[in-house]
């Protein structure tokens, strides 16, 4: 590439306007363009800005390196473009096509200007290909990163969402667990429960495992840990929502839950919690008729 004989920068700069017009036309025609998602004016504007940046940078050298600070403005532009299109629902190949579709107009100009000298033409084409390929791949990379960050955020939200602690009665908390308990989730569950115990000054917590599909030794251990931690803080735990199959599994696995009060249903557990707090439920005279 040190052959500055490469004619690419000069030719692109010289034919900037024609390249832009043809490029936008190609993009509008190609399948990557989805009418309605993107305004034509916006596409034209983006194309123009990108080509302008490209021309400016070509003067400094034609090798695109993602770590090279020289290309930072192009990099920034492509990152923004890739992210916004990822959010709009474009596929990675459609995003990359934005860059790749620039090849054809540039090649046409190169061929037109250098037809007399095939060797120089081949070099210039090669330069253009490597440059545009690396730029296109960069958009894909950013696209993927944007998607991954969305997934990571959703996973976090899922963990947060799935551990609500509700107050059944002043001094009685309930923790309805839904979904499989792994170590990470148990940690979050444990912390949320203990913090709510302190915040509400509750002395009894009902852990309802109706929504937990399976209980193995690990899940049981996690539950027991939560119970002991709550006990250390001075709160009692009741485990409720134990389905028949789960009861069988627990016994077959030899898990000892005798240290914890267990109930089959949440309502039984709530009744026990009320009793422990010295409260009771009575049918009022009105309802009795």
């Amino acid at each position, binding site marked *: 590439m040190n052959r500055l004989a490469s004619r690419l920068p000069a030719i692109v700069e010289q034919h900037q306007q024609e390249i832009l017009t043809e490029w936008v036309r190609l993009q509008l025609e190609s399948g990557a363009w989805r009418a309605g998602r993107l305004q034509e004016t916006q596409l034209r504007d983006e194309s123009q800005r990108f080509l302008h940046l490209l021309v400016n940078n070509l003067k400094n050298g034609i090798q695109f390196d993602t770590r090279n600070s020289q290309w930072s403005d192009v990099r920034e532009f492509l990152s923004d473009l890739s992210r916004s299109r990822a959010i709009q629902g474009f596929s990675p190949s459609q995003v990359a096509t934005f860059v790749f579709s620039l090849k054809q107009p540039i090649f046409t100009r190169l061929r037109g200007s250098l037809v007399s000298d095939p060797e120089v033409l081949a070099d210039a084409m090669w330069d253009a290909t490597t440059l545009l390929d690396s730029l296109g791949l960069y958009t894909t990379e950013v696209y993927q990163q944007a998607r991954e960050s969305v997934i990571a955020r959703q996973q976090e939200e899922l963990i947060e969402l799935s551990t609500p602690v509700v107050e059944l009665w002043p001094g009685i908390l309930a923790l309805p667990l839904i979904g499989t308990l792994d170590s990470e989730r148990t940690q979050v569950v444990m912390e949320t429960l203990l913090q709510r115990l*302190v915040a509400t*000054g*509750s*002395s009894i917590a009902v852990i309802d495992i109706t929504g937990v599909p399976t209980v193995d030794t690990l899940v049981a251990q996690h539950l027991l840990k939560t119970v002991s*931690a709550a006990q*250390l*803080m*001075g709160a009692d735990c009741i485990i409720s929502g134990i389905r028949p199959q789960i009861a069988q599994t627990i016994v077959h696995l030899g898990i000892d839950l005798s240290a914890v009060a267990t109930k089959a249903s949440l309502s039984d557990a709530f009744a026990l919690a009320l009793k422990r707090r010295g409260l009771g439920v009575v049918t009022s005279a009105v309802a009795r008729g």
Partner: protein
Amino acid sequence: MDRVPILRLGDCLLVTVQVDMHDELAMALQDDLTNKIVATKARGVLIDISALEMVDSFIGRMLGNIAAMSRILDARTVVVGMQPAVAITLVELGLSLPGIRTALNVDAGLALLRRMLDTSGEGVHVD
């Protein structure tokens, strides 16, 4: 050297741990507390550790020791105000502090202590 203050509350003693316990301080507390129980004929001990952010196995064992010592001197111990992070650490360390009663806060602890002393029924009531 710093000392952990021990306050008298009727026939109970209130120990408020305000600073992070280092080993020396813990040993001094054991000394002071046993002396104080004997001197005041206290029947109950409340240890408030709500300001404690960190607990290691040594402090965990020390709490157990204090409870055992108090028991020998015929006083019941209730540990109150344990922070969630501390509780999790203790469970992870495998220290579930058997033989120690716990309560969420000083109020609840005092009520628990009252109930324990009432139901033990050993007190000689002098009218």
